[in-house]
């Protein structure tokens, strides 16, 4: 799972709507990918990124984005570092924890398991 995906995710249990992110990331194995820098994509993603989530994980992968993120959105070096973090950093093994309900989701073989149990499903939809 790439950091981008991690950043877009949220716990989807009913009681966590609106506060199920950023998930806490524990990473025991990661991998660096080599996709070419794509300016268009990173510019498209910037308005959607959750900067708290970015700040929380950048140091784990030794990527320095500086302190003042907002001022740097046109800075190419910053954008390249950001791309390296969100697209070229992949978590192979680890764990995600919901900041609201503490539900843990495990990542194995690069695949997070986001299946909910029966009692966790958002069931109160009106028919």
């Amino acid at each position, binding site marked *: 799972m790439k950091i981008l995906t991690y950043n877009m995710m949220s716990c989807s249990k009913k009681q966590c709507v609106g506060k199920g992110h950023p998930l806490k990331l524990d990473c025991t194995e990661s991998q660096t990918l080599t996709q070419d820098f794509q300016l268009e994509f990173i510019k498209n993603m910037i308005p959607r990124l959750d900067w708290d989530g970015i700040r929380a994980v950048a140091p784990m992968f030794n990527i320095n984005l500086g302190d003042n993120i907002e001022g740097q959105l046109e800075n190419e070096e910053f954008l390249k570092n950001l791309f390296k973090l969100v697209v070229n950093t992949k978590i192979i093994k680890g764990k995600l924890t919901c900041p609201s309900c503490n539900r843990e989701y495990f990542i194995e073989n690069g695949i997070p*398991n986001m*299946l909910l149990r029966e009692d966790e499903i958002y069931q109160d*939809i009106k028919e």
Partner: protein
Amino acid sequence: MSRPEHIAPPEIFYDEVESKKYSSNSRIIEIQTKMSERAYELLAIPEGREGLLLLDIGCGSGISGDVITDAGHHWIGCDISPSMLDVAIDREVEGDVMVRDIGQGFPFRPGTFDGAISISAIQWLCNAEKSHHNPRKRLLVFFQSLYQVLARGAKAILQFYPENSAQIEMITSSALRCGFTGGLLVDFPNSTKAKKYFLVLFTGNNGLYSMPKAMGVNDDEMVEEDERQEQVKIVNRNREKGRKKDRVGVKSREWIMQKKDRQRKQGKEVRPDTKFTGRSRGPKFVGKCAGFLLLRRIIKLHLKLKLKVEFIKCVYYGAK
């Protein structure tokens, strides 16, 4: 004729053996790729636009996702079958995948995606796999959540295999109840072989959309249908070796080079040729012959499924 949905729940049906067989069968790859290309076309992303983030619903081993990658976009896929996703990882797809039952909605923040496609997956939601499953509820959870995770103005194109008209009704009405506009598009409605159902959904809220046109409805488009049928026939004829005319295989290196040449002539920007151009993205596995008959049955289902629904051509919804 039995359908996969009647045999077992998806995560059981698409077990390790079936997932590998599915993903290494060249006919399945070709059919899924064609439908994915059509779905991508229906998203109507302006030509030259790249770098979007799309959702692939029921992504399986990533055959549909490859089409998104080839168009220059990124994707995230959800699937309930861990074995299918393992194959996706083995095939080194460029998108990201996660285990998730789409009947539980999506675990993403609102407005994450620029669009969504789904190929041959959502008919599974019409079945109750577990005692606590209620298909109507699951469809509503699915569409409500899909609406949320799409950016405003984004579209979703969902190809599916309805079992009967009641399923079509159930699926479309659930989508419309959750705020989507759009409707059902049927390509080649008069052909049992080429007929394909696409649910075309818009998140726009002011009715400013227009349904795309179905293929193979008018006479002048019949040519295209013949072509399609021809392709199906060619595929079928593969067994009688030697009679087939030389035709460059779609996605072969040669085919890609030809396509790139065409695009260069049109003055388009084309990725440089490398030794990886047209390299096989799989299949890395060759299934054993055990269960071959079952496999044949499944291919038949995908190819020749005779749908009981005959009338619905193109239903327009939402333009109240």
